[in-house]
């Protein structure tokens, strides 16, 4: 099994270079905000381990909101972020990236502080500017881009073949149908039109680290539990007080801002979401935020790693990243369906989770005991999440037209090819997927 990892290279944009950089990034697109897979700067389509990638220029559009808390906004310079979700480790991916796209990367990064196009150690700079997420979510840990493409091809070809043969063989004759399909797959594999690469062995050091993390985090929490319980009580009361006294902001996003965002959306079945804002002032808020994200990360790694995040089955990848010395937070996700349905799904299915992870952000609607209310204040929530959203300059998805539900189904179809079902009901179930 090949585990996934993520990277996020960030650097402030040089003064006066913002416009040029925007134009350069736009030249990578063939639709508003959507990368041409064969673009001349970074031909994403040529990499077989990139799931998603994006360039965002992070601007603090909502920086003034924190004034409501009596805090002066910290300065923020427009910052370029290049982030991606990949198969395997970051180090080897960076090398591959440089090998295939060095001139393009240099051209882009030359708009950033601390980068000179001529004599720069590109790898070193990229690594030095990479920041880690506090929490990441991967829809299906271990499912590689290659596997996704192979399984999609398998589904496509099986579906065409099944339609042709179903009536000849007889629709009720499921055993014979399965036999036909299995021989067909063998044949296609032999001809080389279908490939089903077996999974790579799981890297032992990753396995080790994962196990340590799985056991270690609860163990440490358990050891600290007497202390944590006391702190939790104080925190809970303090948070409740803050919830009652914190200013509630109810600011409608401008139509210009919305138009800038929606022009990039619904070009295909999936969309991207980048959001940036301030952490509410005070150490209680920050520590709560960090602790909740620690738990989020833990559950994403060890519990919600096979197709669903609580009741949500439409998120491919997501991450939470602290920036600006823990004063600000950046969230990015790749999801299926339109923005409105993504948000409605969130409110209706996992409003509690949304409240937990974002209640400590400036502008988030007032919560009760950090899980109630919040997102249920529909307008306040929808306004604030759109206000804090920032446009994505370039977005790449390796498998257009496929939703996370499609990917899970294709994997089940493949499983049916490799592991024989034991009874007719299971065969029928398998056939119904194709």
């Amino acid at each position: 099994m090949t585990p996934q990892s993520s990277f996020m290279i960030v650097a402030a944009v040089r003064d006066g270079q913002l416009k040029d950089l925007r134009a350069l990034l736009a030249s990578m697109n063939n639709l508003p905000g959507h990368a041409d897979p064969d673009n001349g700067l970074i031909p994403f389509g040529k990499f077989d381990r990139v799931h998603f990638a994006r360039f965002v220029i992070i601007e603090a559009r909502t920086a003034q909101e924190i004034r409501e808390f009596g805090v002066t906004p910290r300065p923020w310079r427009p910052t370029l972020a290049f982030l991606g979700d990949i198969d395997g480790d970051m180090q080897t991916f960076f090398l591959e990236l440089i090998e295939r796209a060095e001139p393009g990367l240099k051209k882009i990064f030359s708009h950033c502080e601390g980068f000179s196009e001529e004599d720069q150690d590109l790898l070193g700079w990229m690594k030095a500017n990479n920041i880690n997420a506090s929490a990441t979510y991967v829809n299906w840990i271990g499912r590689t881009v290659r596997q996704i493409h192979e399984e999609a091809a398998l589904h496509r070809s099986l579906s065409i073949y099944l339609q042709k043969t179903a009536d000849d063989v007889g629709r009720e004759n499921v055993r014979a149908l399965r036999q036909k399909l299995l021989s067909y797959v063998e044949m296609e594999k032999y001809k080389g039109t279908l490939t089903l690469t077996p999974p790579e062995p799981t890297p032992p050091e990753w396995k080790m680290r994962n196990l340590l993390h799985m056991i270690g985090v609860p163990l440490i929490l358990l050891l600290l539990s007497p202390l944590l319980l006391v702190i939790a009580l104080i925190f809970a009361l303090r948070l409740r007080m803050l919830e009652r006294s914190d200013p509630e902001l109810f600011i409608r996003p401008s139509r210009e801002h919305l138009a800038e965002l929606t022009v990039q959306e619904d070009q295909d079945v999936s969309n991207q979401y980048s959001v940036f804002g301030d952490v509410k002032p005070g150490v209680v808020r920050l520590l709560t935020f960090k602790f909740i994200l620690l738990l989020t990360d833990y559950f994403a790694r060890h519990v919600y790693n096979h197709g669903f995040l609580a009741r949500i089955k439409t998120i491919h990848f997501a991450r939470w990243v602290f920036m600006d010395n823990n004063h600000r937070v950046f969230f990015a996700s790749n999801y299926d369906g339109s923005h409105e349905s993504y948000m409605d799904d969130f409110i209706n299915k996992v409003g509690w989770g949304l409240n937990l992870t974002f209640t400590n952000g400036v502008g988030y609607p007032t919560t009760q005991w950090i899980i109630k209310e919040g997102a249920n204040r529909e307008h306040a929530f929808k306004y604030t999440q759109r206000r804090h959203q920032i446009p994505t300059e370039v977005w790449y998805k390796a498998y257009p037209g496929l939703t996370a539900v499609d990917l899970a189904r294709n994997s089940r179809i493949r499983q049916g090819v490799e592991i024989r079902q034991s009874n007719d009901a299971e065969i029928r179930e398998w056939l119904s997927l194709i």
Partner: protein
Amino acid sequence: MKESSDFEFDDLQGLLRFGYGKLTDTSFMLLNIVNADLAKKWLETAPISSAITQDPPPDTALQIAFSVEGLRALGLEESVVEGFSDEFIVGMAGDESRSRRLGDVGNNAPQQWKWGGNAAQVPHVLLLLYATKGGITAWQKTIEGEYFSGAFQLLQELPTLYIGDIEPFGFPDSISQPTVDWMQRQSTDTHERDRYSNLLAPGEIVLGYRNEYGQYTARPLIDSRKDQLATVLPGAEDDPPLKDFGRNGTYLVLRQLSQDVPGFWQFLDKVSDHIPEKREQLAAAMVGRELDGTPLVPAHIPGISRKEYENDFTYDQDSKGNYCPLGAHVRRSNPRTGDLPTSACGPLDRLIKILGFGQRPDEDLIASSRFHRLLRRGRSYGPALAPKDAIKPQAPVAERGIQFICLVGNISRQFEFVQNAWTMNSKFDGVQNEKDPMLGNREPLMSGESTDHFNSPDPSGPRRTTCHLPQFVTTLGGGYFFMPGLRALKYISALPANRTGSPS
């Protein structure tokens, strides 16, 4: 507990409460305001029907709604206009991104619409006239009165024709309607009600009341200390010092949908090898009801007659679509799902479900239908054509279709969501390569993946696929309107002349 007479039906336009089904003659007029003063004078005395029940029922009715340009033309201040939702202000065809979401691309693109396709073409006023058979011309005369011709320019009279209680393809129409819970007797708290219910909080349909989130939808509120005129308006329940311009009003979504009746039946006839039973079976699978309106899921409540059962069902027992295909039109338009995937027994089970465990991978994709309901008030147009005649090659060609109307409190969460996430979504509930078999455009995805299939699951084996569905329904026009309460109409008609800043 409030009594039913407590609800301000006298301030509501009647369409919110009645479908005016007995008033079979209709005239839907699209108007532009050419003289705002005369328009306001006309409005002052216009006999707009309220939602009060009358005995005997009236034999005429008049309803009115305005586009944002119409409200501006009458002199509504921009600060009030800004209180409306963005969808309403920008308009149905005012933004390409919205058109893409609504499926108004390709043959449905606003550039090809007969009306409302660009900002200059958006009508100011929608006037809906209803009368008993043969009475519409006289009613029109009565209504127009003294100022009408000087006030308005008739852009178009949208065709309507009563062909019985069916839509042009031949299926009964408007069976599934929410029942507005006027007295707010049902809790909107998901802890008290996680199953599908047909009762709907009034705020989902009428502005100024609590919606299914227990919240008030944003709408224009006016400070009557700054605007004396606003004293005629009702107060805002959620913000008492302010007056509520939106209260008892609703958004009206109008779309002219052209239906290719011969095309539909001839295609079905062809793929059914000209066997009438097969043809009707496939048609029923696509619609999700038989030609007489009977739903396809088996009656699971013994003792309820098939007739009552028309609207008394959910798809809970048919999660795979073996009886009613997942992609069937009525299932897409109203999946009838509750807030939780299946009924939770006990708090532990509830917690397990909330945390997302114990589910099949294709389960719980579509939930909480209650936030996406539409009160439909459409009327058909074009000459009736029975299916048996429609399959003949010489079937009379005529413009047929439906003037689709729905009333909602939140255009984006209700109408646009249903259109985008449910009917036009080629991935709805995990389906493959299909959009709404009736309504869908057949535009392929960016990846080239086709969306012109229709799949019927078959419990005995692989599902049955119909390929290459032509487009049966084409959008010819549309717009977002606001249908004010009667006191808000008074406010509009009293707007001072000097405020009139006609934008055109």
